[in-house]
């Protein structure tokens, strides 16, 4: 073999070795990047603490169910004291309580006081506002909308349908925080 041919062979061999080293370096760098990404994802998951919601949906749901069972101080000739559900029916029928008060007024004032006590929005409290709507199946409002505070972007709302005496009603309650 001539010297020229030998030089050429060694040049080719050196070039192949350089290329192989470069490929290994790229491979190593890729592995490091991959491990770093996996590590970051793992760290992100482990450091992320699930935060407690200010208002949980079960609280709003339970509130509706609980206040619908409340026994008011308004009665009729059938029952000494009516529950909220029956008082809603009484209000739709323009009924009068045994003590002469208007059933709708009693319903409105009882619900207003009840919500004010349950969802306080004064001072530094996280609750910003609320809204309660009671409507018949056809959309007619039973009592005027009970609302207080601000309507913010964050809210929890629940609707509860019920049929106390044949007619269907829907209660909508939303809490803003």
């Amino acid at each position, binding site marked *: 073999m001539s010297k020229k041919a030998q030089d050429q062979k060694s040049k080719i061999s050196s070039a192949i070795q350089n290329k192989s080293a470069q490929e290994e370096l790229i491979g190593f760098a890729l592995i490091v990047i991959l491990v770093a990404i996996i590590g970051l994802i793992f760290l992100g998951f482990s450091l992320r603490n699930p935060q407690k919601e200010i208002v949980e949906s079960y609280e709003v749901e339970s*509130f509706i169910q*609980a206040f619908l069972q409340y026994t008011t101080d308004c009665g009729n000739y059938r029952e000494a004291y009516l529950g909220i559900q029956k008082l809603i029916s009484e209000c739709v029928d323009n009924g009068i309580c045994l003590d002469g008060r208007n059933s709708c007024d009693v319903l409105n004032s009882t619900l207003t006081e009840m919500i004010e006590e349950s969802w306080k929005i004064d001072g530094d409290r996280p609750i910003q506002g609320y809204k309660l709507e009671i409507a018949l199946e056809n959309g007619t409002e039973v009592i005027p909308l009970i609302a207080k505070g601000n309507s913010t972007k964050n809210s929890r709302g629940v609707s509860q349908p019920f049929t106390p005496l044949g007619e269907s009603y829907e209660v909508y309650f939303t809490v803003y925080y």
Partner: protein
Amino acid sequence: MKRAQLKIQQMVFMLLAVTLFFVLVGMLVLALRFSGLKESATELEEKNAMLLVTRIANSPEFSCGNAFGKSRTNCIDADKIMMLKKNIDKYDNFWGRETNMEIRKIYPEGNLVCTIGNYPNCNLINLQSEEIHIEHSNFISLCRKDLINGEVYDKCELAKIMVSYKDWSETNE
């Protein structure tokens, strides 16, 4: 040294480095996990309290059942609770370690603690008679049988059930 030997040596170093790396990462993870063990225990207690508060009103020890006409959800029988309070020592750790429960009337509101002597003219039933610190709460309807002009009727009031749980970070256990 031959080229093959060099390659083997390179691979051995690489394997050693990778193993060492994973051992170190594992040790770091273990150290982090064990350092937050008490927080994790408190978190679990909190989760248990939250699950408890959403379901406890419908459990046999608390629920109204059919005592007030039809079956009601989120309804607690106040008379049952007073009897449960009397026999609470039989329910030691039944709802979780150091779990305490309190039922507070929201409407009408008040701060009078219930005893057998003043019941039902009171506002707060504390099952374990201990102060509640950290808690989860839920709305319930607190019902009982009441008398008016010699006639019995169902009286339901709006209340909140509060479940407190053990905070492990405050203990030396």
